[in-house]
């Protein structure tokens, strides 16, 4: 019985160590699964979205045929047809009687070129009868072909573009009329029904306006409520109730705030539907509990000796709090504010309830007019059937995540730089 290997507990011990190793492995596995999901999620979005940041543009000499432009009604003329003819001319093809050639050609070039011609002709009607060169994006499907997302190997019936169109695209590329480049339109345009013209700027501006409203309400109200609860409130049943209430409000599903916004702000008070103002107020109510909890934590971290010191030299309680405690808690309060605003930036569900889901072309300019915000834009594009919108959705998500990363990084830097340990 001197040999350890012969000891009756040895076998049992081995089993126990095996169980220990297994248990540790489960833990590792769990962490690996969680991190793998993170990598897959972000990787998938980047892979799907990065191609949106480049696009193909085409330059075409367009003959402004006087026979096809009505001088009396410039806006009523069909400039897209002129562009299609220009494409055919560039390819050395001619229009057939049924118009199928020009129809195929028009499916390759964005309508943006037609609008450009309209603007030019309106500015200078003397251009009619001359040939001008216009530059603009190709249609989203053509762009997908250039990027290799639509493949010739797919059966002709299963893709948006037919063989002839693909051959034309190849020839256009070879002739040097099509160039790849940075997709600046995505960052300078609002939403559009045409994927190649849809941009994220409108939603970004809408988000900024809405967050401004949220910040102007949630930060002062939240900070002052927290100051009262932490520094002034008597300890009694009422304040306990308020505390429990705030903790529970933080866990109420966000969509319920949307119902509140719809019933009270829109239907009862007549607030403008789908505006940054209404959305911002709803999100402010939603962000308020988090704001209060964060501020209270920051106030709690200020040691009592600061308060005692101020009170001892004759400051009133209000002076103590506002001249000493709050300034010392400011980095913590700011960190909490940025984090709750970044949370509000990513919120979607309550905004759908207050009507922010409408299609808003262009850039919002008024707090009481209709607007879209980044996460809702993502939702709208995700619902769009066209394939090019899926890419834009992923790119929109990248923009949204970039904003959130900037906000969170700011909060972390603030915390690192100004955090004081007492």
């Amino acid at each position, binding site marked *: 019985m001197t040999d350890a290997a012969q000891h009756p507990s040895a076998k049992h011990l081995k089993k126990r160590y095996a169980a220990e190793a297994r248990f540790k492995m489960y833990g590792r596995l*769990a962490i690996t699964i969680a991190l793998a999901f993170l990598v897959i999620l972000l990787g998938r979005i980047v892979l799907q979205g990065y191609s949106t940041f480049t696009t193909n543009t085409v330059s075409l000499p367009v003959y402004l045929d006087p026979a096809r432009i009505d001088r009396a009604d410039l806006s009523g003329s069909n400039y897209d047809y002129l562009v299609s003819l220009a494409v055919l001319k560039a390819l050395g093809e001619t229009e057939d009687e049924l118009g199928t050639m020009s129809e195929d050609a028009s499916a390759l070039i964005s309508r943006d070129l037609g609008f450009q011609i309209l603007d030019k002709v309106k500015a200078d009607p003397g251009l009619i009868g001359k040939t001008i060169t216009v530059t603009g994006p190709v249609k989203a499907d053509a762009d997908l072909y250039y990027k290799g997302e639509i493949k010739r190997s797919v059966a002709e019936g299963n893709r948006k573009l037919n063989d002839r169109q693909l051959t034309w695209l190849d020839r256009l590329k070879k002739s040097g009329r099509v160039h790849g480049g940075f997709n600046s339109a995505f960052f300078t345009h609002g939403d559009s029904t045409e994927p190649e013209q849809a941009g994220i700027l409108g939603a970004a501006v809408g988000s900024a306006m809405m967050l401004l409203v949220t910040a102007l309400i949630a930060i002062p109200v939240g900070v002052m409520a927290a100051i009262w609860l932490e520094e002034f409130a008597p300890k009694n049943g009422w304040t306990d109730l308020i505390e429990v*209430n705030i903790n529970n*409000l933080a866990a109420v*599903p966000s969509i319920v705030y949307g119902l*509140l916004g719809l019933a009270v702000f829109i239907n009862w008070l007549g607030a403008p539907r789908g505006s940054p103002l209404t959305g911002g107020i709803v999100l402010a109510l939603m962000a308020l509990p988090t704001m209060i909890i964060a501020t209270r934590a920051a106030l709690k971290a200020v040691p009592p000796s600061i308060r005692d010191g101020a009170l001892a030299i004759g400051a009133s309680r209000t002076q103590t709090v506002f001249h000493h405690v709050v300034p010392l808690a400011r980095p913590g309060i700011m960190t909490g504010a940025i984090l709750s605003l970044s949370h509000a930036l990513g919120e979607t569900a309550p905004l759908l309830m207050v009507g922010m889901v409408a299609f808003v072309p262009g850039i919002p300019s008024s707090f009481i007019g209709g607007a879209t915000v980044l996460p809702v834009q993502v939702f709208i594009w995700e619902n769009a059937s066209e394939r090019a919108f899926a890419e834009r959705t992923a790119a929109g998500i990248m923009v949204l995540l970039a904003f959130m990363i900037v906000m969170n990084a700011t909060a972390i830097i603030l915390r690192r730089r100004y955090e004081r340990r007492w």
Partner: protein
Amino acid sequence: MIFLIALAALLALSASAYQLARRRAVSSAGGRLAILHSLPGYHGTWVALWTGAPAALLLVLFLIFGARLEGAAIQAQTPPAVAKLDAQRQAVFYSDVQATAAGKARSAVSWDGELKTAFEAKTAEARNISTLGLVLAIGLAVVLALAGFLLAYPRLNKDFRARNRVEGWTDLLLVVCSAVAVLTTVAIVASVAWESFRFFQSVSPLDFWFGTDWSPQIAMREDQVAAKGAFGAVPLFAGTFLIMAIAMILAGPVGLFSAIYLSEYAGSAVRAWVKPLLEILAGVPTVVYGFFAALTVGPIFRSFFNWIGSFLVGGPLDGLGQYLAGVQNQMALTAGVVMGIMLIPFVSSLSDDIINAVPQSLRDGSLAMGATKSETITQVILPAALPGVVGAMMLAMSRAIGETMIVAMAAGLQAKLTANPLDTVTTVTVQIVTLLTGDQEFDSPKTLAAFGLGLTLFVVTLTLNIIALTIVRKYREQYD
């Protein structure tokens, strides 16, 4: 616009009141500031507050409630021609009147005959009322500002306790801000409960909570007989519960084991890297998860099950094979799994806090008796932390029940009573979104049903939260 000007004017008025009061305080002390009870700035602030605050409050209240008051004033007397219309047409009539009076775009309805005369008369009346309201509000504000100044200003002297008075104002402001949090809850309960009450007037609560047939579209046609039984929400509850269960099966163990590993095994270097990464996962907006579910996870699952099905077709399990070959993207499993991913960091960080709250002495005692780490965890730490872990799981469930975007983008719209994770189900939140986005009148049972669902959702999540938070708090106190 006029309001902004009025508010700016009020601000200027307060500023001059501040200067006047400050000067008066200084002169009352004869220039020797030390004999003043309060600093001159406090005197100035106090008078400025009395001048500006009540008037500003009045203006803001009028800005918020003015349109409603005007609406009520216009509708006080309904012309006989309008009274003949049904309630919905009357509402359109009055909203058109107010829109026209305010110079905004009105609805496409044309009001003819005697309605046209009534419309014009009411529009003129509306214009008068809104001008009257504006004049009244601004006039009252001016009176309030002057009265405030005249009451406050003469009271200033060197012994006046201006600082204490100003601090009284500050306290009041702080209390009002705290009350906003309470008012939010009251407003949520009141608005959702009121709209639900209106809904339950047309649909019996019993049918709603225990009915098994959900097809709100049918009720849009009022003449239809079947309109009555279409609001049975049981399939929605079942769908919500199914997706929540799938999510918890994934997030529960993975989150808990991550927390155990991070708090008991991992070195500080690993923790320093993994924790922020998990926080990123927690900070990703839910709409991103929804996109991921709809365009990545859904198609992967579908092709996986279709692939398995293709092997089974024609074999002894032909029926199952046929079924698997036909599953769609929008299965409960997709939404459940992605929601589970979303909940992993939530469960993990809550459990981490709870495991860390178990006193070190329990660990030391167990290890000293010769237990291995895993035995210590499973037999000492987890039993000690059990109430807290249960609380954390309940909070996660409540998050899963209330989550909207993932299910709205990845789950289906068909209300089915099924426990099959490969089937399409719909949830309470999806139905709320579907019922309330898009154009429809606000008074139909269809839109009001959303509030009935919202009330149920609020009550269920609130109950879960209260129980969970109580458990967690009791548990923390136990070891404090």
